[in-house]
């Protein structure tokens, strides 16, 4: 755990005390191993609670929907920053109402990977801490780089592309060989095998909606899953309901998903949602040459069209 540098603390405190922002959303120390927790700071004196380290996994921009109309300061990693651009593109937020502390992120730690490396379950991981570049559990230690989330291992945008102040050093953007390798592997399977994979992955889902609620771009006032007229979904954990929900929720992010991975990290059952969402991101790139969360002025691909768009889907 590390508190924020004094100058950043001072900056946030200044924003708060001058009324430039109503609140600041950051992370603070949590009560479980390797888990920071979101912090909402309104009193300038509380800025000392804020921390930044590899346990700060939540994408805090998911909270922005709660504070529409207010002026908000927020801490973002490279991936989180893309969500802000997505929200701006869709008219959810304007730049003036945000004060952004950007932080370059080498990847956030996956406590399940640590537990798994120890041959135990998450419940059994009683203590663990990050010391420099290692995760230390009792007398064992693991390289942090080996225990970061999968989506962090293929991240090629570690530095926020929108920010007011930057915390710490900027990291080199190392090109990743094949950021969509996992999608390619699934594409290479037969139709039956892909269905089996989809079934296996979604079979763990118990429809708690953590993925939706952790997603900064899932801001619909009433989600289709919650509608009663018509009621699309019976809210059970049965395969038919879970698959239906997952297909529709993920497809609603087609061309919008910025690939922050917040849904995948939030899932209590460890469903690899990224395997599905990344297909949509890849297709947006391949078919429409579009990458979400990069250009605040660009239109998401399904909100616009060209007369000479590919026509090969249609008979």
């Amino acid at each position: 755990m590390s508190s924020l540098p004094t100058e950043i603390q001072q900056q946030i405190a200044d924003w708060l005390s001058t009324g430039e922002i109503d609140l600041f959303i950051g992370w603070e120390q949590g009560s479980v191993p390797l888990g920071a927790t979101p912090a909402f700071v309104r009193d300038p004196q509380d800025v000392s609670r804020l921390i930044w380290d590899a346990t700060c996994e939540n994408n805090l921009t998911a909270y922005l929907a709660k504070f529409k109309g207010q002026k908000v300061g927020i801490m973002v990693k490279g991936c989180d920053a893309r969500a802000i651009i997505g929200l701006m593109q869709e008219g959810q937020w304007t730049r003036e109402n945000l004060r952004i502390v950007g932080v370059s992120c080498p990847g956030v730690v996956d406590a399940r990977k640590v537990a798994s490396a120890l041959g135990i379950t998450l419940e059994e991981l009683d203590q663990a801490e990050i010391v420099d570049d290692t995760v230390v559990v009792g007398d064992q230690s693991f390289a942090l780089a080996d225990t970061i989330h999968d989506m962090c291992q293929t991240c090629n945008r570690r530095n926020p592309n929108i920010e007011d102040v930057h915390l710490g050093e900027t990291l080199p953007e190392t090109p990743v060989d094949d950021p969509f390798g996992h999608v390619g592997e699934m594409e290479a399977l037969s139709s039956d095998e892909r269905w089996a994979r989809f079934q296996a992955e979604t079979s763990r889902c118990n429809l708690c909606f953590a993925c939706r609620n952790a997603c900064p771009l899932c801001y619909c006032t009433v989600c289709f899953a919650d509608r009663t007229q018509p009621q699309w979904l019976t809210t059970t954990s049965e395969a038919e309901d879970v698959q239906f929900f997952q297909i529709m929720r993920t497809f609603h992010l087609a061309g919008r998903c910025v690939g922050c991975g917040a849904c995948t990290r939030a899932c209590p059952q460890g469903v690899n949602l990224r395997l599905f969402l990344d297909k949509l991101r890849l297709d947006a790139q391949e078919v429409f040459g579009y990458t979400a969360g990069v250009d605040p002025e660009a239109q998401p691909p399904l909100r616009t069209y060209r007369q000479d768009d590919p026509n090969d889907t249609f008979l």
Partner: protein
Amino acid sequence: MLNDRMMAPPKDLPAIWEPKIVAFLCNWCSYAGADLAGTSRIQYPPNIRVIRVPCSGRVNPIFVVEALRQGADGVLVSGCHPGDCHYISGNYYARRRFTMLKRYLEYLGIEPGRVQFSWVSASEGGRFAEVVTKVTRDVRALGPARRLSINKVNASETDQA
């Protein structure tokens, strides 16, 4: 399984499986095309169940997936040719949307051919019959839809071997 006892084939359904295909047809082109096929007495398979929509752009992807969920063996969405949309641009949006959807559903393991899209104008009665014939043939070849369906009724016992 919540629905298990319901999966026995109902007594009043035919023992031989016939594909059920839900077709979302735009009011201005494809629906009129279907009409023309009818009035011109052009033969096409009776397997489609038509849902008339104002525009292919009106078709929410959830309609397509819901049709499969409710037990359709195939889904066809058809609208005006690009450039001919009664609402100027509805089918252009539809084209992007369904290009993404088709790729996505196939990625998740929905068999290619289960969900198809076409452009059929009001004057193309013959073409409408061809499209329906092709879609029906494709879906028949795939057999009853099991994936996503809460109604695997006609898929279990009456499955064609």
